[in-house]
């Protein structure tokens, strides 16, 4: 009888041991060497990138972060990161805040490692968590390297709570002109009405420190334009900002960002640039239009340029 019981539970036991029943959660597991990466990023930020922000104690910051690694992966709240944020926060230069949805890589490219803009991933606390994943195992101490919960698994998971808390702080510390980059080719809409920007950034804008808000709706080169300024979810955002009393403006395909997107689409007609050589020749001799390349503008709206001769 006992042997039978053992025999029947053996496959289940093996399954549990091998972890072969599929990952517990939907998200990526804890990033290996998490501590070294976080400490290294902190050290780099302090030593190389922002020495003027004063000495930050990276060890103390890590100790504050570590606390969540002992908690149940579905019971981690934004407030659990309060000490971590308090130790790592620093001021953000005015007019340099860049908020975004659905274009992480473009934002980091354009921000040029905080030389041009300072998005959340260039702020110390944001830098430390960027692209990483972490959680404790469900029923044991120790990190889960197989998988971690996403919002679909449970709301109060370590990673989402981190970004909620970080977003709130980033928003609170932002001032001057606020820039927002949205993806107008995103099928679900450029402005997610439920998302980090909507729920954890906009509500924490400090009205007395913000002069105006500028929205850039970027479109993928050669992909359909799902939404543009004044349309769909962008309209919802514009109205929300208006209601809150903010002065705002919206630009489709903000030129410097579009130029950046064109780097790996340089032969696409949407990216055809006027050739400088040809511009000089044009003054000397009449040239047929097809030899002069120019920005293709069907249906595009590039404010500021249409008025130029």
């Amino acid at each position, binding site marked *: 009888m006992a042997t039978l019981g053992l025999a029947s539970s053996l496959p289940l036991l093996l399954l549990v041991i091998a972890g072969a029943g599929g990952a517990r959660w939907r998200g990526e597991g804890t990033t290996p*060497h998490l501590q070294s990466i976080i400490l290294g990023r902190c050290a780099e930020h302090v030593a*190389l990138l922002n020495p003027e922000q004063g000495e930050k104690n990276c060890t103390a910051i890590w100790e504050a972060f570590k606390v969540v690694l002992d908690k149940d992966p579905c019971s981690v709240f934004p407030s659990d990161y309060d000490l971590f944020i308090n130790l790592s926060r620093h001021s953000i230069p005015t007019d340099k805040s860049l908020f975004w949805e659905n274009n992480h890589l473009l934002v980091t490219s354009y921000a040029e490692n905080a030389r041009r803009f300072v998005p959340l991933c260039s702020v110390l606390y944001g830098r430390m968590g960027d692209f990483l994943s972490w959680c404790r195992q469900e029923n044991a101490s120790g990190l889960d390297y197989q998988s971690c919960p996403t919002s679909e698994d449970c709301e109060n998971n370590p990673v989402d709570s981190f970004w909620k808390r970080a977003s709130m702080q980033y928003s609170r510390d932002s001032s001057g002109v606020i820039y927002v980059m949205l993806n107008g080719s995103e099928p679900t809409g450029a402005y997610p009405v439920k998302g980090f920007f909507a729920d954890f950034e906009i509500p924490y804008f400090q009205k007395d420190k913000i002069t105006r808000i500028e929205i850039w709706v970027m479109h993928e080169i050669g992909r359909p334009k799902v939404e543009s300024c004044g349309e769909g979810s962008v309209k919802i955002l514009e109205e929300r900002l208006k209601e809150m009393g903010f002065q705002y403006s919206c630009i489709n395909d903000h030129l410097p960002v579009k*130029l950046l997107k064109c780097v790996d689409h340089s032969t696409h007609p949407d990216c055809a640039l006027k050739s400088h050589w040809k511009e000089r020749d044009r003054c000397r001799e009449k040239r047929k239009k097809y030899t002069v390349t120019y920005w293709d503008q069907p249906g595009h709206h590039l404010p500021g340029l249409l008025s130029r001769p």
Partner: protein
Amino acid sequence: MANHRFSSVSEEEKPCCGISRKAQICLCVLFVLLIVVGIAVSVGILMWRQPPKHKEWKGPGTTAHFYEILLGRCYTYTQIVRPELRHTDCQKIGKAFTSAFLSKDPCGSTEQDYRPLMELTTQTVPCDKTLFWSKSSELAHDYTWVQRDMYTLEDTLLGYMADGLKWCGDAGSSEMNYQSCPHWREDCSNNSVSVFWNTVSKRFAEDACGVVHVVLNGSISNTFDEKSTFGRVEVFNLHPEKVHTLKAWVMNNIESVPSDSCSSSSVNNLKQILKTRNITFVCQNNYRPVRLIQCVKNPEHSSCRYNL
């Protein structure tokens, strides 16, 4: 009340405490000797306890938190940037890196010092994807950040780890010198940092294959600088049996009047060198995708606009 009176006692006249004059002198000398020895021993102990002072150099010292940054970058690179390298042993690499310069004369660095590190970090860049640069660091790296299938040296593991950092040790100490490190020109050229970059640049060039590219600065007089790392090390370590063509993208500053920098004498010099090495040279002025990167900073410039 006792009447205390101090009077000088002639040494010759009154022996003290019942000991002879000679004995007194001997005792004094012994006493002094003891004090001197005592001081010497204390100073000796203190000096031994104190870390020996590093040599003073003319360049900035080792970057603060050097080792943490190095290790963190190794993990970021192997876990996130190029996850195909996730089984890399970063601890081992970190140790090999520091043992190349710790406890050694920072002006006597050699390629041999970095051999163990080099052996731990082989990384193949796909053919046709190597991008060299000279006097165009920001532009070249902005380009590969967007064009992620091309690699500059700083997009490979070792380059990524060491980019922007400074390091040196000292022959008389096992510590890193955070105060100063040798300056290339004012102290010595065979310093730990320069030798590192020469070593990794050499291998980067040796490993290249197919068509290789270089971003050059057409707005300076020595567009091709024979004294630069590209000119001294990389060009001469390309293997002609693997690399058949070098394509140069000569970029002018966007504000300057465009000139045919490809025809300049310094670029011609590069062409001749490659000719003798049996490598075809192709040159392009203001290669468009890289021009677009420049345009991001100057979107209103006429060459960045469309034509109505």
